């Protein structure tokens, strides 16, 4: 009961702030609205029994990734972009139309699925996820480290000063 009310609340807030995040012309407001949306997603995770992911979502996205965004926005002097559509009205219309079609289509498809009541109560605790990570998903877990290494080397390469 309580959970249901919370879900619809965060869903509405999440969608609205997502709209602000992609449409407002001030980049700092964009980033902050996205923080709100991601927070709403974290709450949804908690409602879905994924408590570890909920915490990780805030820690990783709100606490690190979006701070990085803010950092870059400020480093580059928070440039405000000229209004959209000034130079490419076509792309704007096409983009919005595509997204609208995608949203309508996916909702139509998803509303059409008949889903049974949630099956098991698999709680996403840190321990349960940890056992999976070093068990069946060990390869991906190790492999992701190569990915992070590559990203680190690449990001540094792009911004370091000439020697």
């Amino acid at each position, binding site marked *: 009961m309580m959970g249901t009310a919370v879900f619809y609340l965060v869903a509405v807030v999440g969608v609205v702030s997502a709209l602000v995040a992609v449409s407002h012309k001030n980049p700092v407001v964009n980033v902050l609205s996205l923080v709100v949306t991601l927070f709403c997603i974290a709450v949804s995770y908690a409602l879905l029994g994924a408590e570890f992911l909920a915490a990780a979502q805030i820690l990783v996205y709100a606490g690190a990734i979006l701070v990085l965004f803010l950092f870059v926005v400020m480093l580059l002097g928070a440039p405000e972009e000229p209004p959209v559509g000034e130079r490419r009205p076509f792309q704007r219309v096409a983009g919005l139309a595509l997204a609208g079609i995608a949203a309508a289509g996916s909702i139509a498809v998803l509303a059409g699925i008949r889903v049974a009541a949630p099956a098991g109560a698999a709680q996403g605790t840190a321990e349960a996820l940890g056992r999976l990570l070093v068990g069946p998903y060990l390869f991906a877990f190790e492999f992701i480290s*190569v990915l992070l290494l590559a990203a680190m080397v690449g990001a540094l390469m792009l911004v370091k000063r000439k020697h």
Partner: protein
Amino acid sequence: MNPSDLAAIAPELLLVVMGAVLVLADAFVPALRPRFGAVAGASAVAAAVLRWTGPLPGAVWSGALVVDPLARFVDSYILVAVVLVAIIAGPYLARTAASYGEFYGLLLFSAVGAMVLAKADSLLVIFIGLELLLSISLYVLNAFHRDSGVSLEAGWKYLVVGAFASALLLFGIALLYGATGTFSLAATARVVAERPLAGNPLILAGLALALAGFGFKLALVPFHAWAPDVYQGSPTPVTAFLSVVPKGAMLVTLARVVAALAPQALTPKWLPLLATIAIASQVLGNLVAIAQRDVKRMLAYSGIAHMGYALVGIVAFGFDGLVGVLVYLAAYTVMNIAAFAVVSAFSESEDEPHLITDLAGQGWRRPFLSFTLALAMFSLAGIPPTVGFVAKFLVFRAAVNQGLAWLAVVGVLASFVSVFFYVRVVYYLYMKPLPQRAPAYLEPWPVRVVAGVCALAIVGLGIFPSWLLNAAETAAKTLLR
């Protein structure tokens, strides 16, 4: 995890370690930088040897990977591409004074991503391998010449398109998971066999999104718009790499996904769509290529068309089709790398466009490289006795055998169109007079070596394709279990 799991991925481990070593060596022993290319190439060769001498145990790492003959086949040509690119990158890096260590390190990481992708048996591993190792390294490699506007532009465009495609793919994976309840391709095949899911909207929407993601990465029409800019802007050795390795690994992944879901549930529904994409890619790629003045852009559109041909092999899914795809990938690798190797030697600066008119008259002045370029063009056009002809023949034959003769007919017609712009390159090389002030091009030996190897492969495999064919047949058998 057990020791056999580690043994199964020994080549990948070797490349990861060597990549990290090269990055570190750049900082600690800068004097050795000019030798990094040789080290990277040698590691790739060693990895290939390990792959061919090592075990092929099938599913390893709790079903995350399948190390089978198919994976070995794809690995081989990925590694060949790495060796060739490592060789031609030397002169480029020397000219631009870029960071050697990072370049080769990322090249090796990228190759590992492609190799993992080629043997992924789980949507999770596909996602990580495809999007990230393959893409993240490539975003940086595209923008490697970061003082140049076009290089940064190429990196940015590839990043946005790549990330957009990965998001599409991820949502597709989510929907597929919603329908099947598993990430494993092997398990998906079982689920699909047990329960007919053909009409399930989730699986259809999921496949559509995943297909769009793959389409972006393979630069298939209508997801192709990024390719010309990225091809033109990236450093030429990187273009050579990115035009062959990601596409090959991804086509094989696509084949694995299709093999898991098809034929029970999907083939009839998806056939027209895939066929349309294939035809559109061939037609658009070849027609727009005619209008190009820049060789790299022309090759980009030609690449779009070639992925359209290769997709015919997937549409005509089955043993013949798969063999066709594999041979096509191998052929495409040698002819494309040959073309880019020569183009990189025929240009003064990476920032300037590589105009076709710049090639005028070079045929007589620089006979060896020009001959290789001409050979590559004939092969891309599919003219016998080159390997390009063999590849096209196999793919179209597979289509005919599957009762899709019309698809083959369209393909052949599209190939006829393409002859025009491929041969135009040869025409410029040999029939046009050398301009008064022809730039003095460098012709470093590494480029000549690569050109020679590729030329030999184009003709050799074109005349004696049985070796390649046998390898591809062995590989294809494993997928159709």
